[in-house]
């Protein structure tokens, strides 16, 4: 039974989601929510279990259908994947709880879609097969399309249109890339592909290069790398609060894939294909960060700001990816986890704030005073500190790790200025935001209740952020090991005994 | 026959036959085909409106053969017509007064007319008493209408006793 723990993070949400679609369940909100909470808690437990297992016993592989790799689909749970699984399930728990307060009633199928979305994400993290990665990308994308329009409204529709169409084009490019890669490598298993990459010769080399570079576009689109980031601000700003919070992980999937594919398959060990994407990734990563800073400064509402901060974090992470080394990768990994949690937190808080400010919503203008100024102010303050990268929350550790890693790699001259300036910009704008939203008010507050489940959701993220600081020693050591694993490349791990 | 078990016996027969046409004949397929032939009508029965029953199956067979022959014959005629210059064509729009009633008989008549080259059923009048027909080349409209009524409508009327 224990060997199946690797596939459970995919099957559990699928099962929960499918059950929730059954009409008897889907019309019973209470049942649906309970099911969702149970599934989310189980997902966290599973992820912790898997993480501990992998950290102790090394990478775990699972051959679906027991077809030996590279022929069947192999799931590979290494440290990198399990950390991201844990992150995803924590996020799921937070979002599920938050949404259970009522957001999930503003349209049908919210809870199952949440589950399907997570299934796609977890699958993308776990799979060791590049076409299977495409399939899980599509699962998570279609679920995200459906979640984005939850609740309806003009802004959501307009944002969805861009998001969906651009991503459809991205999927087409993904398939082109897969065609090229299969057409040159003759295999789909990532580890097998990596093994073949070093051997590829002659003209096939250039074709394989095309495939690898196309994947850069595909993953860059997911990650919101410049100039592929245009979908992001609108989508994040329009999405319902819990959905936006869940979307915090979306860009990270792109980053993850870049690591998997461009740091591992086409990484150091890929012979003539080694680091093929880096010369392109470098400038685009830098520009992403730079533009992120500009966009942060230009933000006029809390959600737009949070979205632009996502671009900043993406830029920072891309710079880490563009300089593949153990220190940069480890730093990026820590920062990835942090920024996902912090972004999710600010989106959830923004959701609460929006609900209390009337027409001013979350814009940086004078508005109705909040019904819970102290609570929300305190939460906002915490989230802001985390986002800026100020102590005592994990942001500063992440920033410091990245700065330090950049220094180790000798690229501090390029990376430091935008990284530090991005913090400054965030500080300027977040302080402006907080002071406008919480202090500049007019009129009288309208009583609005905050559901305990909403607080519970936020609480999950807060606890996670605090744990990231308290357990930073262990976590950084873990990310270090994960980075080492990743850069060592993917081995064609045969599942035990089979 | 048990109506509940076999709601649409003709369908069942046709389905079984089709199944055997699709697959090679074997005991296994006979069993499987029978199963499907029972199961499917049972599933689709609610979606089928009741139709006039075939009173004279033998006549129906004869009718089918006549139509087949007509298709062969008129195909050649029309092929020649098509190859001739357009100006020699005398297309016409005809209205066929309908004697037969009922969806199925009327549908069969309309289909027959369309299948035999040279004529196409275009529409029923709203009161379903007329069938509009387009003919590719008509010299004697009355004759054409009469032949349709005699050759197709009358047998159909007999088959369905309507």
């Amino acid at each position, binding site marked *: 039974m224990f060997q199946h723990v690797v596939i459970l993070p995919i099957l559990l949400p699928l099962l929960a989601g499918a059950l929730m679609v059954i009409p008897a369940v889907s019309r019973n909100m209470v049942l649906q929510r309970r099911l969702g909470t149970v599934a989310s808690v189980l997902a966290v437990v599973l992820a912790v279990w898997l993480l501990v297992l992998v950290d102790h016993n090394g990478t775990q592989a699972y051959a679906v259908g027991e077809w030996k790799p590279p022929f069947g689909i192999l799931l590979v749970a290494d440290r990198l994947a399990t950390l991201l699984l844990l992150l995803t399930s924590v996020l799921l728990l937070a979002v599920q709880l938050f949404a259970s307060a009522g957001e999930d009633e503003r349209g049908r199928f919210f809870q199952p879609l949440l589950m399907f979305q997570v299934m796609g994400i977890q699958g993308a993290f776990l799979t060791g097969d590049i076409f299977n990665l495409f399939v899980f990308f599509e699962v998570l994308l279609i679920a995200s399309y459906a979640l984005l329009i939850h609740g309806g409204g003009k802004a959501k529709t307009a944002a969805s249109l861009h998001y969906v169409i651009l991503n459809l084009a991205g999927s087409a490019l993904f398939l082109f890339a897969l065609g090229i890669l299969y057409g040159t490598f003759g295999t789909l298993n990532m580890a097998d592909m990596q093994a073949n990459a070093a051997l590829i010769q002659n003209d096939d080399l250039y074709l394989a290069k095309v495939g690898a570079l196309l994947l850069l576009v595909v993953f860059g689109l997911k990650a919101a790398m410049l100039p592929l980031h245009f979908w992001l601000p609108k989508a994040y700003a329009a999405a319902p609060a819990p959905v936006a919070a869940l979307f915090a992980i979306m860009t990270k999937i792109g980053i993850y894939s870049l690591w998997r594919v461009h740091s591992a398959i086409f990484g150091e060990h890929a012979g003539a294909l080694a680091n093929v994407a880096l010369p392109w990734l470098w400038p685009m990563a830098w520009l992403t960060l730079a533009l992120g800073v500009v966009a942060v400064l230009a933000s006029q509402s809390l959600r737009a700001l949070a979205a632009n901060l996502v671009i900043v974090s993406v830029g920072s992470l891309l710079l880490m990816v563009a300089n593949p080394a153990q220190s940069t990768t480890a730093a990026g990994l820590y920062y990835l986890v942090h920024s996902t949690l912090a972004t999710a937190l600010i989106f959830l808080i923004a959701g609460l704030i929006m609900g209390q400010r009337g027409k001013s919503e979350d814009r940086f203008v004078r508005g109705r005073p909040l019904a819970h100024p102290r609570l929300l102010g305190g939460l906002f303050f915490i989230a802001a500190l985390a986002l800026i990268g100020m102590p005592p929350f994990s942001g500063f550790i992440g920033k410091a790790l990245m700065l330090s890693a950049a220094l180790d790699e000798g690229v501090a001259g390029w990376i430091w200025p935008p990284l530090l300036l991005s913090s400054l910009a965030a500080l300027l704008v977040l302080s402006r935001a907080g002071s406008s939203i919480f202090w500049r008010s007019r009129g009288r507050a309208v009583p609005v209740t905050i559901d305990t489940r909403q607080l519970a959701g936020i609480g999950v993220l807060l606890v996670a952020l605090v744990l990231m600081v308290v357990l930073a020693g262990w976590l950084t050591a873990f990310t270090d090991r994960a980075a080492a694993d990743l850069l060592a490349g993917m081995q064609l791990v045969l599942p035990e005994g089979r | 026959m048990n109506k509940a078990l076999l709601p649409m016996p003709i369908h069942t027969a046709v389905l079984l036959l089709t199944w055997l046409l699709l697959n090679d004949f074997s005991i296994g397929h006979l069993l499987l085909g029978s199963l499907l032939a029972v199961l499917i009508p049972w599933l689709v029965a609610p979606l089928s409106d009741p139709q006039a029953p075939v009173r004279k199956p033998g006549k129906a067979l004869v009718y089918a053969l006549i139509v087949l022959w007509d298709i062969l014959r008129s195909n050649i005629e029309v092929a020649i017509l*098509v190859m001739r210059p357009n100006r020699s064509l005398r297309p016409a729009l005809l209205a066929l007064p309908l004697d037969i009633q009922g969806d199925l008989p009327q549908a069969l008549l309309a*289909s027959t007319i369309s299948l035999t080259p040279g004529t196409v059923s275009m529409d029923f009048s709203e009161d379903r008493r007329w069938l*509009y027909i387009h003919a*590719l080349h008509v010299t004697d409209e009355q004759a054409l209408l009469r032949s349709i009524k005699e050759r197709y409508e009358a047998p159909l009327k007999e088959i369905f006793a309507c």
Partner: protein
Amino acid sequence: MTLYEWFIAALLVIGGLFTLIGALGMVKLPDLYTRLHAPTKATTMGIGCILLASMLMRLDRNEGFGIQELVISLFLFITAPVSAYMIAKAAMHLRVPLQPGSDPHRLLEKARDQQPPQ
């Protein structure tokens, strides 16, 4: 070539020929309603002969009792008239002219006037 094969060849030729005639009709006939007659050639003689050829071929090669092609014919025979019917109906609705400048609805009335119901 055996006589059997000659027969198959003949069927193929006839099938192809009628398909082509149908297509020629589509190109050269003057209006939609006359063109509506063309697919009938293709569906009946054209496809019928080719399907028959295929069936006979299969029998010849001794691949069992494979007359699946009959099912296709069955389908086509059932559906082709309805397709034509629907297209014609649509054309009438859209008032696609029967003869240059004509209104098909007017013509329908005229057709009925010629022949009062018996």
